[in-house]
């Protein structure tokens, strides 16, 4: 058996084992509290996990390419959500130029414009504050992003104003029945949008720039020697990371999760995605997606099933961290992270 084939069969084994485990868990939970709660928790977990996955994906892309731990990720997400609110409700741009289009398309165009703006903001952030730090200690750069977080968050809160801003999405509070559970339209949109974006990122990594990016992540000097502009790769990864953060910020500010839109606390939502990032592995794209959905589901299931009052209030909120801790003790570099080769 070749190495690749062995790896493939291992992957199949893993997926099989996970599926069997999930089925047993599902059976136990249905026997305990019925199938309706299970489906409801799954739906909530998937939409929550989709947001986490997008946040984790942006974070991991930035980390993989530039080795920067971006603590300003949440602030960028909130800024992106604000831009959507601004374009879609205040400016009505580009919807005012194309009045004949359906509402969802008009709103999506506003999102596209806002995503370009937030990607440009990511570029500016990289050029002004991260580029001068190239080659400096990892944690000095992380500290710079903490400073950035304070600045971007404060400016965003000032932009938003005293009250939260609704994003002006066409789905508002509409819901639909999916079998026995009621799901908000926005949650369905979130889930499928995340799938599309993940597919797009996967496709991008197979393109020429994507390969250059992976080469840079692997070895910056070798990549330079091959004629890859490492600076350009840094810029592109920050633009993609910021764009993904912005989109995640938008979905975290929709009904029913934040019924009144983007507000002063939106920026803190990203902290909830940290366990997802670590669970999957800091530098793994696949890990970010798997980790995102896993943490989303774990949090949702804990909220639905761990209702015993002896656990104190808000126990579900720390379940993602407990899961993260457990996984790290078994696999110290996350589920899919690259093991650091330790040399003397």
């Amino acid at each position, binding site marked *: 058996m070749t190495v690749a084939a062995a790896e493939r069969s291992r992957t199949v084994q893993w997926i099989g084992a996970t599926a069997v485990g999930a089925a047993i868990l599902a059976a136990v939970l249905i026997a305990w509290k019925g199938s309706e709660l299970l489906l409801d928790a799954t739906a909530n977990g998937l939409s929550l996990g989709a947001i986490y996955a997008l946040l984790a994906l942006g974070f991991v892309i930035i980390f993989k390419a530039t080795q920067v731990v971006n603590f300003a990720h949440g602030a960028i997400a909130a800024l992106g959500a604000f831009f959507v609110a601004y374009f879609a409700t205040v400016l009505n741009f580009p919807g005012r130029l194309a009045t004949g289009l359906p509402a969802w398309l008009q709103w999506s165009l506003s999102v596209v414009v806002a995503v370009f703006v937030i990607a440009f903001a990511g570029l500016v952030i990289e050029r002004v504050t991260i580029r001068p730090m190239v080659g400096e200690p990892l944690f000095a750069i992380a*500290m710079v992003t903490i400073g950035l977080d304070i600045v971007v968050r404060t400016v965003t809160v000032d932009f938003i104003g005293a009250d939260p801003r609704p994003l002006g999405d066409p789905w508002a509070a509409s819901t639909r029945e999916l079998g026995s559970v009621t799901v908000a339209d926005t949650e369905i949109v979130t889930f499928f949008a995340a799938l599309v974006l993940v597919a797009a990122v996967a496709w991008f990594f197979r393109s020429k720039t994507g390969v250059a990016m992976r080469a840079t992540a692997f070895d910056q000097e070798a990549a330079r020697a091959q004629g890859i502009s490492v600076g350009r790769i840094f810029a592109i990864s920050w633009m993609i990371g910021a764009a993904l953060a912005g989109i995640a910020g938008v979905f975290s500010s929709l009904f029913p999760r934040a019924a009144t839109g983007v507000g002063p606390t939106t920026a803190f939502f990203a902290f909830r995605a940290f366990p997802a990032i670590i669970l999957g592995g800091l530098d793994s794209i696949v890990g970010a997606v798997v980790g995102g959905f896993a943490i989303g589901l774990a949090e949702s299931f804990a909220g639905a099933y761990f209702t015993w009052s002896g656990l104190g*209030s808000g126990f579900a909120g*720390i379940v993602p961290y407990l899961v993260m801790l457990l996984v790290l003790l078994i696999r110290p570099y996350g589920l899919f992270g690259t093991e650091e080769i330790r040399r003397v």
Partner: protein
Amino acid sequence: MRGRPNLYVSYEAEQSLLPTWTQRIAATLVVLVLVLIPLGGGLEVGESSFRPLGFLADADWLKILTQVGIFAVAALGLNILTGVAGQVSLGHAFFMAIGAYTAAVLGGEVGAEGFFGPRWGMGLPIWIWLPAAGIIAALIGMLVAPTAVRVRGLYLAFVTLGLVFIGEWAYRTFVSITGGSQSGREFPGFEIRLWKEETPLLDLTRDGPSWLVVNWVDWLLGPWINFPDEMSEEAKTFLFVLILAVVFVVLAKNLQRTRIGRSFMAIRDRDIAAEIMGVGDAKAKLQAFAISSFYAGVAGALFAAFVGRLIPESFNLFLSVQVLAMILIGGAGTVAGTLLGSSFVILLPRLVRDFSSWLTETVEEGSGVLAWVGDFFVSTGQDDWGLVSTASGLTPGLSVAQLNAVLYGALIIVFLIFEPLGLYGIWIRIRNYWKGWPFTY
């Protein structure tokens, strides 16, 4: 041989705490100046008084300086773990909380009733609860340490971040210790008792006679120097924290030249190489977590006692990040840098606030070029556009409070871009420039 800064003729000389005379004199001067601050910011010699630091003797400045001292202890602890032993931790706030709540349980009021039932408190004196705060935190730190053997680098940072969030849940749940979320509890004050007697031996929480300068100092120096007869509670607390901080600084500095300290550095620089040379990875990390958590526990207890009442939400991620900022801005791995960093992080918001109130005053009332230039940046009302708005309510532009936050964040960025090794790096650069002056090297 004298006067050559980098020339040591014996191992003993090289390893001494303060190897050069410049350092010894500077350290003595710093301690002397700090002692003078609570005495009124200077001295009264005969009839003439000399108080160049008089403004620092105000209650509010003394409080800020006390906070610098407390956070210096916390930052020294994190520096031992992160700077010296190379284990990045975002969980320092958790260990500070352990210290604070140990102090609260051991030193807290006996038989206090909270809304959720009895609130634990044993009324023990400070010489029990302060060391115990450190010891319990150190024990918990030793429980966490084994994860550091398994989980490394950034992953460890996020594991310790998890501690902060798990801690937040624990504080909410154990209400008889913490007083409950958003309610909080009282912490024991700086009252020094032998045991549980009614009147404390020494009460730092009230204004009173200056207890530092007792009869014999007065007898010795009295004819020439007039010491203040009264001392405010802020001055006393500051002196108390100063003494503790000096002890912890000396211990931290000393640690770096002991066998343990050097094993930390070996682990930081290359753990496998260290293990080959007989430095136990697990043992060194256990010691690093224990010592660091001890510092954090004591600092947490001091902080809680200093503020008097805290809600559990105070021990959040922001506190951890603040302490980490201190050592990274100051210069990780060095004691001097840690002290500079903690001063910088605590003093900066206050200085920025003073600056912006000066700016707005100049613009609103002043005249001349400065006010004219400032007016471009400052808006005073709804019709006026500017980067910063001095009017309250919903006006365009950042509010003064937001300006403070933005300046704070921007200064962190600018400092680190300018000198990634922190304030200590800037100092080294200046020193090296003057060492070779007028030559460039």
